[in-house]
């Protein structure tokens, strides 16, 4: 695969909005979670939004645009290994979506975020805040989930720092402008034969509303 200098549209608007919304929501969640007390009600609201976005991303991974489809970037171990060996090469093969390693990094972050939300739904703060599914578990189990929730928060910080470091590495060492791609949708280095990303905003909106409704159902069980 040869890279072209021409900018190619790889990230559709829904995927980009989903990404940056998750980033902002994570920052606010971290802060409000640490503050605790009265801020936890907003922390929980934040969590519902994150859960909606994750559900949306999973739907988008099956029914979304070509670059967002899981089947287009989740590779088997052999290909991941092959790519891993070239990761420090300045001219490693470009991809029109996540590279084999990056794809699994995305999946890891999504799954850990999902685990974080699920444990949060059952958590309590020992004062007067409880997750919406708290009534369904014993207080011991809720305490257990709360502990996990606090540990995963640090794990997520680690994952996100790694994510930012690797993006910076691609940005400055490989000159693959991934930051610009996530902002404008256009990436500077893509393979010659790229799939076409056709935006289907109406479909994205449908999935987003569907995700929101699912979350509303879950938190009002």
């Amino acid at each position, binding site marked *: 695969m040869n890279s072209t200098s021409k900018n190619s549209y790889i990230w559709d608007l829904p995927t980009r909005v989903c990404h940056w919304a998750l980033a902002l929501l994570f920052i606010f969640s971290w802060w409000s979670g640490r503050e605790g*007390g009265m801020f936890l009600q907003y922390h929980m609201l934040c969590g519902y939004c994150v859960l909606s976005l994750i559900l949306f991303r999973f739907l988008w991974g099956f029914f979304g645009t070509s670059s967002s489809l899981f089947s287009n970037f989740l590779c088997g171990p052999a290909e991941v290994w092959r790519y891993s060996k070239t990761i420090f090469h300045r001219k490693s093969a470009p991809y029109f979506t996540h590279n084999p390693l990056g794809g699994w990094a995305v999946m890891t972050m999504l799954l850990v975020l999902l685990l974080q939300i699920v444990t949060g739904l059952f958590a309590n703060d*020992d*004062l*007067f805040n409880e997750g919406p599914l708290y009534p369904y578990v014993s207080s011991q189990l809720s305490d257990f989930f709360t*502990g996990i929730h606090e540990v995963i928060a640090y794990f997520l910080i680690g994952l996100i720092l790694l994510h930012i470091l690797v993006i910076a590495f691609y940005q400055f060492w490989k000159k693959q402008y991934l930051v610009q791609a996530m902002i404008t949708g256009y990436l500077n280095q893509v393979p010659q034969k790229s799939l076409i990303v056709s935006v289907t905003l109406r479909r994205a909106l449908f999935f987003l509303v569907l995700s929101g409704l699912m979350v509303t159902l879950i938190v009002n069980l």
Partner: protein
Amino acid sequence: MNNRTLWTLFLVVLMSVTQYVYSEPKPDDAVHYRQGILMALGWNVGPMGAMVKGKVPYDAERFRFLAKRLELLAPMVREGFIESSRSAESDTRPEAWENLEDFNQRFSELEKVSSDLAAITMNGDREAVVKQFIATVNVCKDCHDNYRVKR
């Protein structure tokens, strides 16, 4: 007084002394006691939090009633932290016993904020009540963050 009377008196005195010695609470009981008080505090804070968050309608009368409960319960917590319960199994971190001065300071703070809360509920200014309630639960939270075992 004859010998028998003296012996009886002696025994009575001895029994009351041993009674006194045995009445020193056991460490486990101290832990149960303070956990009970803390549970009672949480039991009363819960509905106040629900009112402050707007989950249930604000009821000044009920809020005042609960705030007075907190004021009564708050000074009782520290009584459960007797020296002999230092190594008893509980959710108290060893740091609490290592920083007793700070630990005690927090109980004084809890007593202060909760009695202030009870006082403020008397004049009925809801905004001031909410503000003081937040100050109160923050004292709870800060102490949990520092001295309660991680869950």
